[in-house]
């Protein structure tokens, strides 16, 4: 929280008990383990660092091609490439100690047991401030149906993780559902401390020369400005129904985008694809929020949360 000048706006927010100096976080899978953008800005400029999705076992990820550019968007099918939780704990998280921002680890799995295993392991790491649960993964016991696609599956996995860890639990929802509010309420009830909205939209692209899908994985997740209207609508819908805070993301590139999410009800925002376009995106958005508050006489950024439906 900024206390240096009486007139400087207070950008601080608190999510799931995690205190952040500003509401700008990184999006999982787009910032590695925090080591890659340090030439562009120090991590202590961030509200929080959310690291790449971590699974029980190491994963090599999908074969290439893994990326396709689409109009104002990006399709990715990385396939959760990560070194596995043990190596993450041993090698990737320790450098983050003392980085000046809370560290949130995104976790993924194909069974509730896998999630719980990873959550328990990470609970023993003092550097970890919270867990973000990616429930867009296929549930092998439910025939590959994504955990996040049905309220019962989502609620079940969250309940089990809740029992396995005392860390703050942030549940990241999939936008590929008929009724996001239903899923949000189910995971809130199952013990989530906060929600992240949203993961990527399922999409694809075809190479008309090869007459085949462009991604080796066939489908991929759409991120970036193209998806912003959908993500924003979901934040708007969910934040009015749940009591826990919502982290908004999907296509944020500018401070104006971030303000849209905050006014729609997000207590914080995250930036993924935006970092690829501008490697200083997160800090520039945080500075932009500060400038907006100064110009508009907003004392606390938290006063703006949900104003579009509160006022």
């Amino acid at each position, binding site marked *: 929280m900024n206390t240096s000048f009486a007139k400087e706006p207070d950008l601080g927010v608190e999510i799931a008990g995690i205190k952040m100096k500003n509401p700008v976080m990184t999006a999982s899978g787009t910032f590695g383990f925090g080591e*890659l953008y340090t030439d562009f800005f120090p991590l202590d400029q961030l509200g929080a660092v959310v690291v790449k999705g971590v699974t029980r076992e190491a994963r*090599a990820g999908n074969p*290439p091609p893994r990326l396709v550019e689409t109009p104002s968007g990006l399709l990715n099918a990385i396939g959760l490439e990560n070194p596995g939780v043990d190596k993450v704990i041993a090698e990737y998280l320790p450098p983050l100690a003392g980085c000046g921002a809370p560290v949130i680890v995104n976790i993924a799995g194909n069974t509730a047991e896998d999630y719980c295993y990873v959550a328990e392991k990470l609970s023993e790491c003092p550097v970890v401030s919270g867990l973000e649960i990616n429930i867009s993964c296929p549930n092998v016991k439910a025939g590959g149906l994504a955990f996040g696609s049905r309220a019962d599956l989502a609620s079940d996995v969250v309940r089990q993780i809740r029992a396995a860890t005392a860390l703050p639990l942030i549940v990241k929802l999939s936008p590929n559902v008929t009724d996001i509010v239903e899923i949000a309420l189910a995971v809130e009830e199952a013990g989530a401390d906060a929600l992240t909205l949203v993961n990527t939209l399922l999409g694809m692209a075809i190479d008309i020369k090869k007459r085949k899908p462009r991604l080796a994985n066939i489908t991929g997740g759409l991120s*970036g400005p193209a998806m912003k209207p959908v993500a924003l609508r979901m934040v708007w819908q969910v934040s009015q129904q749940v009591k826990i805070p919502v982290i908004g993301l999907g296509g944020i590139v500018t401070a104006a985008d971030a303000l849209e999410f905050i006014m729609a009800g997000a207590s914080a925002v995250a930036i993924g*694809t935006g970092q*690829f*376009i501008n*490697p200083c995106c997160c800090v520039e958005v945080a500075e932009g929020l500060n400038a907006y508050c100064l110009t508009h006489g907003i004392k606390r950024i938290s006063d703006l949360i949900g104003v579009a439906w509160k006022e």
Partner: protein
Amino acid sequence: MKYHIPRAPVRAQIKTREAYLLTFEAPEIAQEAKPGQFVHIKTAKGSDPLLRRPLSICRALPAEGLVVVWYQAVGRGTALMTELMAWDEVDVVGPLGRGFDTEIAGEKVYLIGGGVGLAPLIFLGQKLAGANEITLFGGAKNAGLLETAQDLSALPAFWATEDGSLGHRGLVTELLKQSLEKEKPARFYSCGPHGMLAEVARLARAQNIPLQVSLESAMACGVGACLGCSCDKGSGREGYLKVCKDGPVFWDTEVNL
């Protein structure tokens, strides 16, 4: 160190035959760039096309603070770049990636480039030239690109064109094979289309000549964050390398050519 220079002043853009030479001011990049590294350029003002485009550094002039890229207009992003003119500004990130290994001296080395794949080799040749005996092998469809390469580089060179409009009519690897019958260089450096790299690698392995190649891949972040630019490790090894961070320059033994 990597830099984001959102408004690098364009000093010149020259349309050469088949390609463009863009010169912009980016003192930090000019200072620190190593041959084989690339810059990542935002081409549109809006969000379509969304992603930056990777381009090899063709020349770095630290004294003037200038960087030169040499590129072909193959799609929407590069087409937008062709509109840049002196006094405009360009949004650049760099220098990125692992460049060529330049810890070599007193040796005979071959640089083998196809098309605009010659771009990083021109920078590399300049760097290695004083301390080594260098031969450049350049191939292309026609004389267009190669004439620009001749202007940009003073290295002793062999040229091959598919249409015979300059030098040998045929593939540059045919020239390479002929040369290898006469001498055995200490190292190959190569950049160009996949077919050419595969043939260069075959020739290098046959004679046990160490080879470094510069690879391409679609990229999003350019810094190793998105894990999107992966390439096979080859030799049946599991897992992937990131072209943007582990490369774009690899030893041929590291990758699948």
